[in-house]
């Protein structure tokens, strides 16, 4: 069963390390709210991007002026895709 993980706090929360330690191949991580700041640092994400698909929520990037600063290999998605991803993966685990 594949899992969509959402992370909604900034890198200082250390949520990514905990989430990353529980990822399995085929899972995905979606960055939302302050979690989008993870995507301005591609080094932090390089450890997991080979294993899982990365997504980041467009609205939260836009709000924070970070739309052009998505340096990671994360696909920018809107709310429609957020819902679709929740359907595509077997369950959703939220990190907040």
């Amino acid at each position, binding site marked *: *069963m594949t*899992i969509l993980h959402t992370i909604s706090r900034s890198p200082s929360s250390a949520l990514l390390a*905990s989430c990353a*330690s*529980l*990822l*399995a191949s085929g899972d995905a991580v979606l960055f939302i709210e302050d979690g989008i700041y993870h995507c301005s640092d591609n080094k932090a994400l390089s450890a997991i991007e080979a294993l899982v698909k990365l997504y980041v929520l467009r609205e939260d990037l836009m709000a924070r002026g970070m739309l052009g600063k998505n340096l990671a290999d994360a696909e920018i998605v809107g709310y429609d895709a957020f819902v679709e991803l929740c359907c595509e993966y077997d*369950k959703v*685990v*939220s*990190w*907040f």
Partner: protein
Amino acid sequence: MSDKAANNAPLKKSITFISRSAPYGRDNSQLCLEMALACAVFEQNVNYVFLDDGVYQLVGAQNASAIDAKTLGNALETLELYGIENICVDEDSLNQRNLMAKDLLGEFKLVNRSLITALIRQSDCVFNL
């Protein structure tokens, strides 16, 4: 439970709780416990995992009367009373916080991350707070 429950939903699911917050500072640990106990009352398959700061909930000799709160350590004993048998503690989280098994309220099953990964993968639903 609900009058909406007339359709053919499964009667039992496997539900995993990842209790990841320290006690008292926020109420996440309390909320997580309440949800798990409710699931146990309705006879669900409940797994309870202490991860990250959540392991601080297990430190012995808590006395929350000093801060006008209920001692969470006592409440955790109710997990087993409610029939929640699969209670596990992430060993890395203990090590990172210089906690040893002897510092804890009781004896717990220590597990590694790969076991927790497997647990959440095979669960129908995961609550993580």
